[in-house]
């Protein structure tokens, strides 16, 4: 893909992913309470599932729409949807509030869900490509 097209696709995808993450972060505390960063935990786990599913599907269906839209979907949408810097900041805030065990739980739960998400997304993407 020509460079500027890749940048445009990633820019638009990232704007959409980032906006959706923002909307989730506005909606979640009202549902599950503000004491724990559930919103970031959820978007990072879901984004890890999605990126692995898109990548596994696109790798097997190399001429399909998912493969063509890879920069938009993967580096764009999933990249903007998930965030490492806000995850780190939330961890730091929990530590600052003296809630060290909650901070540790947040980090450990996050890592488990990120990797489990990617693993399960990879399997789902591979299965979907085999059926398609």
């Amino acid at each position, binding site marked *: 893909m020509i460079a500027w097209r890749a*940048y445009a696709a990633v820019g638009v995808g990232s704007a959409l992913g980032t906006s959706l993450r923002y909307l989730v972060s506005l909606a979640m505390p009202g549902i599950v309470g503000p004491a724990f960063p559930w919103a970031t935990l959820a978007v990072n786990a879901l*984004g890890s599932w999605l990126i692995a599913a898109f990548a596994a599907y696109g790798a097997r269906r190399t001429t399909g729409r998912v493969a063509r839209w890879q920069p938009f979907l993967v580096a764009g949408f999933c990249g903007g949807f998930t965030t490492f810097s806000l995850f*780190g*900041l939330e961890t*730091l805030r929990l530590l600052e509030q003296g809630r060290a065990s909650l901070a540790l739980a947040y980090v450990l739960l996050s890592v488990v869900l990120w990797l489990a998400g990617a693993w399960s997304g990879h399997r789902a993407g591979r299965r979907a490509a085999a059926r398609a």
Partner: protein
Amino acid sequence: MTIGLTGLLLVAGGGALGGMGRLALSNLVARRLGAAFPWGTLAVNLSGALLMGLLAGVLGPSAPGGAGPVWQLLAIGLLGGYTTVSSLSLQTLTLWQQGRTHAALANLLVTLVVGLLALVLGWWLAGGPA
């Protein structure tokens, strides 16, 4: 719940710039250091964590709760969209599936430990209580 259109546009604009910045840096790093290890994503997440620490230190502790326009554009949008967990998860899984268990573990641990330290460093440099 009312969602301000201005806030959403600031977040989206920051997210677009952040995503393009991430692409630019990870391409640059991959050209220099090769694609055998995800150096690009690592560079993005560590630099983004440092900048987020600086920003939080400059804007003060009340920033995330009362999300003003600067916070929406720079923190939630720009740096939130610049850094990524999805690529980190996928690249760690790929390294592990290639049998490169040590590289997978190193990728994850270095991102987490150095990333959190970079955030604290940025916060401290900007005068935050660390």
